[in-house]
């Protein structure tokens, strides 16, 4: 029983929830205040995209769904919407090996930025699909561009964090 509990608290998914909580704390405080060009940087989207790029589509999608579910809890949009969006974002990010053979560190960074921008575009689309429409304006592209740009800068650090967070075992 105690071994099972130990395994549970040292598992990658427990670490994912803990790291996501800290990042969500940053999202709702620091990043909420600092808005370059009037756009909020999206660290949760960055985390999901990094998970996809580092560990592939399957683990990425799972991580994205969990990160999104946590993000949903502080948003005013329907619960579950960000979960689907971030799941899809991570899945798309995980498709990098299909396009780039032997991805280098910089191609991974670019992939994270692009997946982040796509993920940010998916938000208004998903909102419109559940009837939270009326946001079909050019601003969404500017938002996606800025989010992609900011995430391009922070991607190297986030890739390291993601690598540690979702490592199968912490030993070895």
């Amino acid at each position, binding site marked *: 029983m105690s071994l099972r509990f130990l395994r549970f608290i040292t598992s990658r998914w427990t670490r994912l929830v803990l790291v996501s909580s*800290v990042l969500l704390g940053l999202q709702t405080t620091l990043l909420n205040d600092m808005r370059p060009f009037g756009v*909020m940087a999206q660290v949760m989207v960055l985390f999901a995209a990094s998970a996809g790029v580092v560990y592939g589509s399957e683990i990425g999608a*799972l991580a994205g769904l969990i990160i999104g579910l946590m993000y949903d809890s502080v948003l005013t949009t329907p*619960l*579950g919407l960000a979960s689907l969006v971030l*799941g899809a974002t991570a899945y798309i990010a995980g498709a990098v090996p299909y396009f780039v053979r032997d991805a280098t560190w910089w191609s991974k960074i670019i992939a994270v930025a692009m997946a982040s921008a796509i993920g940010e575009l998916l938000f208004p689309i998903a909102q419109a699909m559940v009837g939270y429409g009326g946001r079909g304006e050019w601003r969404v592209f500017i938002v996606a561009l800025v989010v992609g740009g900011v995430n391009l800068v922070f991607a190297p650090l986030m890739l390291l964090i993601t690598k540690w967070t979702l490592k199968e075992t912490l030993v070895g």
Partner: protein
Amino acid sequence: MSVLSAKRKRAIALLSLTSIILITLDLQGSASTSVLRGTFGTFFRPIEGVARVVTRPLSNAWYGITNYNDVTKENNLLREKIAQQEGAAVAAAASVRLSQELLALNGLPTLAGINSVSAQVIGDSPSNFSQTVEINQGSKSGIKVGMPVMNAAGLVGKITKTFARRSIVMLITDPEYALSVKVINGPEAPTTPINDPRAVVSTTTSTTTTIPTTQATSNIPGFTPGATTIPLTTVNVTVSDPALAPTLTVPVNGALPVRETGILEGRGPTRVPIVRFIDSAQRFGTILPGAPIVTSGGSLSLAPPDIVVGTVTKVRDRLGTAGPILEINLVADLTNLSFVRILLYQPITERVAP
């Protein structure tokens, strides 16, 4: 490996289905999603509190770098404005009190008769696509969904979600927000054309007539009306012969402001709200920029009457009977909210049937 992959695929499918079920439940207004959010909030608030304390120096540095010049300029401007408005505020407060006493005396609803709760804004929406803020008062203070929220300047939005000790406020700029409002159009300048062929510029005679004060009576117990003043115009007529000077004074019909109702709609953070469905009636005259917009009230309205919303900045005329579209400059600065007041007034349309 393939067993592991199948397991993961099942987990992905399960989580996706859970998300879809949660969306469905939330859209149906199920209480279970609120419970989930509330439970997560209980665990998350301490983490957020620590993050706020740790990151505050960084936020302050960011504000210092990006807004220093603006803040200095704004500070100087505000000092000047305060000096100008201090005197006007005293006179305005007296007028408002007088008006509220008069309305109360006649049994008409006033804002002074509605209880309110003050609250602090504790956070914006952590999203680029929602125009909401979070406040630190909730259902325990009597706040319910639909109640109007205002600050010292004017209307800010409405309550859309309540928890025990916090609530979510949807701002006026949110595209989901719509509210019935009144446009108060000022009276047009009176013109009295005189087409007298004999009129030649020679002498100017000014004539003014005033109506003598009469003691009016009232059916309201304890209410003695004062002198009634009817607005009058003084007509300056240029005539060739002073003997022909008219002895007529024309009372101004449109001396009182004319009101017309419309619907205010938010359009997101980057675009100003608009008012549509204004009747292009001739009686209403031309709407000029600067005309005040206030809530219209009424049994189906989201807010009580006469809360200041903003002023007209631009009038976009449309063909036919569609009526003009008015662009609005909100009096409340929604980008810099600190303290708000929630009127404990729940519109009929927002009441949940027991």
